[in-house]
């Protein structure tokens, strides 16, 4: 094991799990967390898992090379929770199954039923003939206008269409005007929008929410921004305005220097239980770069993000950075960085918050999982009281586990061979490392069948504690509870993201807590081949959440162009610290 990366591994492993510090004899187990595997990409996974031992060295060299290349972009191994993993996996799977072409937009052959959008304004007669020739003259105008909006055609063409309709019928209907308004707003024809506003206002008693939204969007950016307030009022008569509506008005007010109103509106937005848009926050931060009367409130916004586990996008992160840098008193500097494997900021070296939960949090989460996930509204939905009782007695009767295996999930992780064989191999492997194991499964696993060998299962029961739920009960909730019950050092092995169980939890705070625990304790089998060590994906030792220690702020953000699933967390950070502290080169190594 003369890898270049090996020293780094040692540091790393200690941080991965406090387990190694508490129980040094377990470090063998942790060695199985092969840290040089930098990628969760399935391509690599497959490659590595099929490699023979004899080719090990060459393979490792290759991996190291791959590393050095990847280091520039992505220095650390990807877990299932790292941003972008899901989309890359999906991409890989798609390529693998040869469905590359499926995603290509299929040329819609609508045929000649749709008249083409003309490329220059037409006269009344030309429009009339076009309408006559079209196969569907019914609603011709609206359809044509819709296509113009889609094609973003010139406003003159739309005007000529409106003229044609006005001349033919003597009036214009609301839908057509609304579509025209959309076209104008997309093309930023403000004077046209004002004219349209007068016309629509005089012809119709009220407008629909769509029209209001469009008008608010335009009016707030112009000199008539005050009128957008009244529009917001009339909109709120029928329904709760969307966060975007609020955001537009707030941005308008800020743009015209009325920060008091903007903040009042922001309060109202929060009062209504809406989550503000990133654009709104961006506007607030941007406006405060020059005027520093609302600094406390902006800090509240950051804390709001922390409480709700929200992550700013790159544009917002930039605004936050420049706001900090504009603060007159302290000399803040911001830099774009990543977190080191040991849970330190690569830029300033400060330790990030640990992923460990406090004792109270642990107790709370355990109770909640029992109450909301296992028992739920009806204990019979997922289990039976007898079974639950049996389970409770079971976990009380045995010593705390070090690792809990999701039997069926682990057994099905690798397609080859018998399911029982895979499970046995994984269990034996872990047992060799002196761990106290629990295997959770369903009772059908104990019945002899072609995929569940009785001998294998007997041996599994020898090396590990086993708990089999009824066939018609769910096993995952028990897995979660068993892992939580055993305490902080207990990990669980499963590829399941447990999202449906997370959704059972009643409130957002507990869900965040659960997610935090899950990120810190879920081991995902990364590579396994018979006769070789099982490898797990790395577990982060630090919590990915917006955090401050007074002297510095660390804000995880989403880089532009990266789509992140709801169960993933960003890997890029904004590090803000007061000048005067020793600084290291800001480039992420």
């Amino acid at each position, binding site marked *: 094991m003369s890898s270049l990366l090996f020293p780094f591994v040692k540091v790393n492993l200690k941080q991965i799990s406090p387990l190694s510090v508490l129980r040094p004899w377990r470090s063998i187990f942790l060695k199985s967390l092969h840290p040089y595997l930098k990628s969760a990409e399935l391509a690599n996974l497959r490659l590595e898992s099929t490699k023979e031992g004899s080719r090990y060295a060459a393979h490792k060299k290759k991996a190291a090379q791959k590393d050095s290349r990847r280091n520039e972009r992505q220095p650390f191994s990807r877990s299932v929770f790292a941003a972008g993993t899901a989309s890359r996996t999906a991409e890989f799977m798609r390529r693998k199954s040869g469905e590359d072409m499926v995603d290509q937009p299929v040329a819609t052959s609508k045929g000649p039923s749709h008249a083409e959008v003309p490329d220059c304004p037409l*006269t009344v*007669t030309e429009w009339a003939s076009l309408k006559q020739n079209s196969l569907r003259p019914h609603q011709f105008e609206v359809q044509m206008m819709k296509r113009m909006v889609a094609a973003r055609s010139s406003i003159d063409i739309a005007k000529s269409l409106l*003229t044609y309709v006005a001349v033919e019928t*003597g*009036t*214009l209907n609301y839908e057509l005007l609304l579509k025209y308004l959309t076209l104008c707003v997309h093309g930023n024809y403000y004077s046209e929008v004002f004219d349209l506003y007068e016309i629509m206002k005089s012809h119709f008693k009220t407008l629909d*929410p769509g029209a209001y939204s469009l008008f608010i969007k335009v009016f707030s950016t112009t000199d008539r921004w005050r009128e957008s307030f009244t529009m917001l009022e009339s909109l709120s008569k029928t329904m709760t305005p969307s966060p975007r509506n609020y955001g537009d008005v707030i941005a308008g007010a800020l743009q015209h220097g009325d920060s008091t109103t903007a903040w009042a509106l922001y309060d109202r937005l929060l009062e209504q239980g809406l989550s503000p848009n990133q654009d709104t926050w961006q506007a607030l931060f941007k406006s405060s770069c020059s005027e520093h009367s609302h600094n406390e409130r902006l800090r509240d916004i950051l804390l709001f993000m922390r409480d709700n586990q929200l992550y700013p996008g790159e544009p917002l992160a930039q605004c936050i950075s420049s706001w900090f840098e504009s603060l007159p008193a302290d000399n803040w500097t911001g830099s774009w960085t990543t977190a080191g494997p040991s849970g330190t900021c690569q830029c300033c070296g400060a330790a990030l918050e640990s992923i460990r939960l406090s004792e109270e949090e642990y107790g709370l989460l355990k109770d909640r999982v029992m109450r909301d996930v296992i028992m739920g509204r009806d204990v019979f*939905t997922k289990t*039976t009281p007898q079974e639950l009782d049996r389970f409770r007695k*079971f976990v009380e009767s045995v010593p705390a586990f070090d690792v809990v295996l999701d039997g069926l999930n682990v057994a099905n992780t690798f397609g080859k061979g018998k399911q029982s064989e895979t499970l046995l191999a994984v269990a034996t492997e872990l047992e060799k490392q002196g761990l106290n194991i629990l295997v959770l499964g369903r009772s059908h696993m104990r019945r002899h069948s072609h995929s569940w060998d009785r001998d294998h299962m007997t041996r599994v029961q020898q090396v590990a504690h086993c708990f089999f739920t009824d066939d018609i009960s769910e096993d995952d909730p028990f897995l979660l509870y068993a892992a939580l019950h055993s305490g902080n050092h207990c990990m669980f092995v499963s590829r399941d993201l447990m999202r449906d169980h997370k959704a059972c939890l009643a409130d957002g705070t507990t869900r965040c807590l659960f997610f935090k625990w899950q990120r810190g304790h879920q081991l995902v089998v990364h590579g396994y081949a018979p006769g070789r060590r099982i490898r797990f994906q790395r577990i982060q030792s630090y919590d990915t959440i917006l955090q401050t220690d007074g002297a510095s702020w660390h804000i995880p953000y989403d880089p532009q162009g990266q789509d992140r699933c709801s169960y993933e967390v960003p890997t890029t950070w904004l590090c803000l610290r007061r000048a005067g502290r020793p600084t290291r080169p800001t480039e992420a190594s």
Partner: protein
Amino acid sequence: MRLLKQMFMNVLWSHRFPQATVRAGRRWSCFLSLTAGAGRTFYANAGLRKESSQAHDLAAKKLDLDVWKSVMRSSQPQEDKEEDDDSNDIDDDEEEECSTLESSRELVEMWRLAGKLVPEQISEEDLQALTALSTKSSKKKFLKRLALKEHHKKVDKEKKERKRAQKEAERQRNAEGEEEGADRPLRNTFLMHFWTRSMDALHNWRAAQSMCFGQPLVFDMSYEQNMSKPEMTSAVSQLLESEGWNRRSADPFHLHFCNLKPDGIYHQELLKRYGRDTWDRLLITTTEQHYMDLFPKNQVVYLTADSRNVLRTFDHDKVYIVGAMVDKSIQTGLSLANAKRLQLVTARLPLDNFLHWDMGSKNLTLDQMMRILLTLKEGGNWEQALEFVPKRKHDGFFKAPQLRKQTARTARISERSEANPRTGTGHNNWVSQSRVITVLNTSRIKVSDVKTKRKKNWWDEE
């Protein structure tokens, strides 16, 4: 100025690429006509304009791009007056209360104008429900549902009208024919006319008979609180349909609506749909009692899609229970939970053994379930019965359904039960000797029951 520049560029362009001159020329003429025809008034007479030159047309068009604005503005005062009248009509009292409803009504109105799918008529009750909804999307969905409902109603009505007109015309023609020619055969027959009411009487007679001697079928009506309003409505529709199919069948079930709370939502909805008189005369048993109080436990089989046991043969001596629930957002394990609580035997239909399942959930509607069970009861085989599974959900039947089994174990069991039907019936004390026995396969269910019992103390054994 921009035009000039553009024109200049066009000229340049046309010099370099002669094939582009046509286009450039057009712009040029456009520009010419613009300068020449400035201040020209707009001709609405299309006939005149047809004859005018292309350049003239373009000039006119260029000029009156904003004509629609003036048209709209000129029509404005009258509209204003109307609006004033409208606003005068509204009374001042109860304004507060009305205003929210009124604004909802306006919202519906504006959405209609904006081309959204909203109903033409909206009742006060629906309007209140609409106002109570908080989000835009929920309002939109609600209105869309109402609009579709209204549309279906309208289409049905039109169809009925059309049919009535057709019938009327036919009768007219017949009457005329009778008057004119005597060569039409006389409508005389020795057979008695079979009236619809006679048919109804027959159906009712059968239903009454089944209420005395027939096999019970239970609808478990205890899922009121698990359903939303629209789900409840469709559940009641499905119940009505099921009852109809049952009544019209040759050998109906004795229907039980168990756990039906008096004045519960289910009861109210059923009353609303049937009408008090029909409801009271309906030949089914409706009861507040639990099915466990009515039938012995070992006779009851709960049919649920979440069960692990496959129903292989229909047993005429069992009491099958169907959960009267519609779950549009699939609530897995709800009815299974009830069965588990009462430790009932559960079963699901052998959909996977007979059908190439394509997509869609495996829970079926109540009327489909009813027709499947009726077919089985009348002696049909599974292929005939599973015809009632919606075609969109599957890709046809397996060629040799008995050969395909989900697991080796179930295959073994079914082979055994088919080779020796007596092993299945041996368990059952409820088999009456006189009847022809359809093969029973309670053995599998029983076996799994025994196993669950044994499972409970596996840990103690170790």
